[in-house]
């Protein structure tokens, strides 16, 4: 912590605008969902029935809910890990400018800009077993219609997510690598430290703040995963690719169970809150700042 004089009031003053926004626009929605989760309500009607915690007991007894839990862990683990590894390698590579590196970096970031309509369309045209551009190589691997196969569909979604978000990880890592003192690279050069060693032994520990950051972004992203699943599989086949958020949408919009949807929202909120607190603990204990 920097030893400014009288930082107490300044600190509060600096965070207050954001805190106020969150207080006005988030606190009520959270309570709205907690309250709604105690009712049997279709989300529209003027009447709702108080049912206590039944939405929660129904939820815990719902096999699809446990699919969403499993998918959350799978998704969080594999996307966070792979995107971090690919991202840091690419960022390290691009940290030394070469002809076309700016262009390449922009192209690799581009998928992060795509809306879900684009993603759904593109990947149907790639993976469809009848007209997909990848149908022949896929067939050679013994795979037909991966998105229609409950054993494969979620893995495809994980792969597509990696395709879409590696560029984002790369950009964040790139930002922190180029912010490192240049002497570091010069010293490594003088000492004859190889690239692999430079990356794994020196850079990775120094950019761990970014890694923490990407981890929490990735976990929250996994929790809120909606667009990709909705556009690629719609949660199917037979619910095999449901995530918390697609299931929440289904409950609220397709099945007219707003109370149930709010219960899912509140569970998500609790999980994410726990993740944030744990992350904060870890982050502070490592004393990155």
């Amino acid at each position, binding site marked *: 912590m920097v030893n400014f004089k009288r930082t107490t009031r300044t600190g509060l003053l600096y965070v207050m605008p954001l805190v106020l926004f969150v207080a006005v626009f988030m606190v009520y929605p959270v309570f709205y969902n907690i309250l709604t989760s105690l009712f049997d309500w279709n989300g529209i*009607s003027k009447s709702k029935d108080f049912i206590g915690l039944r939405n929660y007991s129904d939820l815990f007894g719902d096999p699809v809910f446990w699919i969403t839990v499993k998918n959350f862990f799978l998704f969080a683990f594999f996307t966070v890990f792979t995107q971090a590894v690919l991202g840091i390698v690419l960022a390290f590579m691009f940290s030394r400018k070469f002809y076309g590196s700016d262009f390449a970096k922009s192209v690799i970031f581009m998928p992060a800009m795509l809306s879900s309509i684009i993603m759904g369309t593109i990947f149907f045209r790639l993976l*469809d077993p009848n007209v997909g551009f990848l149908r022949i190589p896929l067939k050679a691997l013994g795979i037909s*219609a991966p998105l229609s196969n*409950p054993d494969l569909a979620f893995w495809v979604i994980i792969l597509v997510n990696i395709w879409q978000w590696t560029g984002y990880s790369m950009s964040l890592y790139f930002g922190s690598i180029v912010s490192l003192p240049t002497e570091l690279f010069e010293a490594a050069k003088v000492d004859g430290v190889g690239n692999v060693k430079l990356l794994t032994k020196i850079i990775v520990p120094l950019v761990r703040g970014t890694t923490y950051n990407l981890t929490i972004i990735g976990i929250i992203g996994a929790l809120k995963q909606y667009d990709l699943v909705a556009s690629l*599989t719609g949660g199917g*086949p037979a*619910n095999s690719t449901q995530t918390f958020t697609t299931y929440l949408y289904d409950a609220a919009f397709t*099945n007219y169970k707003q109370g149930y949807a709010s219960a899912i929202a509140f569970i998500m909120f609790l999980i994410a809150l726990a993740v944030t607190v744990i992350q904060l603990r870890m982050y502070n204990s490592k004393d990155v700042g």
Partner: protein
Amino acid sequence: MNKKGLSLSLAAAFLISASLFANGSSESDGAGDGRITVQSWQYALGDYKGFSKDDELTGAVAKDFNASHPGLQAEVKILRDADHYTSLRVDFAAGTAPDVIGIAPGANLDQFKDLLEPLRPYAEKEWGPDWKDKFTEAAFTTIELSGDGIYAFPSAMSASGTVWYNRQLLGEVGVDEFPATWAELEETTAALRDAGLIPLMFGGKDAWQSYDMFITILGTINKNLANKLFANEGDWTEADAVEAFAYFQNLYIDGIVQDGALSTTLYNEGYSLWKDDDGNSNLPMIFNGSWDLGSLKASNSYYDKFSSYGIGVSTFPDIEGNEAVVLTAPDVAWAVNADSDNKDAAWNFVQWLCYDMQQEVVDGLGFFSVLKDAPAPTVALTPDYSAAYETISSAVASDRTVGFRSSFYPDMNKALFENLQLLAISEITPEEAGAAMNAACASIGR
């Protein structure tokens, strides 16, 4: 910068942004002065008077209504289907819902009904106690079943459970006529596969496609049982129901539908193969309803190319000697917001669309009239269109029809879609599907 300076600059920043944002100032919607707002989803108005762009279409509808109703002024909007219902949710919660609401009969209407004005009294005032004789019986099947009251009026009927086909591509495997029986359908699709063509295009990712298909099969095998099951009064493990599940499963196991059907939506993935913007067609057959009649209009830029394939439509093939049913139900209905300040004017709009404008509904192409004395189309039709219209309307007029395309109960719909998908991936047997449906429907109360 000291703290005072900072807070000043912060305040300035907020003021600047606030003034920028406030640019789009809100205007009060005048109420009670003959102005009504109308909102519906995109295809609800068909191609009214040949318009297809959203703005032109709604503008034309509003203009015609206003011209024929002095003192009233309608503002008409159409949104994407999902957006329409999303906006209704927030609008009803905040008290900003439109006066006239387009609503799909069936489960959607059932969920919204306690926010809607009961329309029976208005209809009686308008046309007298026998007003219902003016409408076809099927026009109210999925409206009245949701309770005693009538909370919406239908404006257009559609028929589904039909298959559109491409004579040129079928001809490539030596098939001249659309398959008349399930066995012929199997042979044809097998031949198409052998020739490297796509068999029957089916959007298994869509709930509505799955319901249409299953209800067509079940209704063909046993129409009465279909009616009973969807009113939640039947036993899903009855032999005919199990058989319907088995036929549905065979669509996938026997490869009658295309590979990857479970991850295909009919719109736009499947349909864009059936007809792209240039009029090219890459599909021999697609499971789709009467609303696609509009593609056979000569005014479409792609028409010459598309029609050169010899496009036709047929009811589904016979199953076990039973002639296939078509599903005919009101596709679009209109309701009046119970909290509207201008209910009479809103009713005028509903009445105008659902009665006075039936000629335009028929001419708007793709829809059928809700009236018993249905007007015949008066616009010039292409031969393809006339033939397709003839096929569907004679099926609709026959007794081989089922009057719904899904259940009124969201829970039943959810369970049905899940079990149909489980059948498709051979995770369960038809018997298990029946048992699972019984279990899911047991808790549905009327």
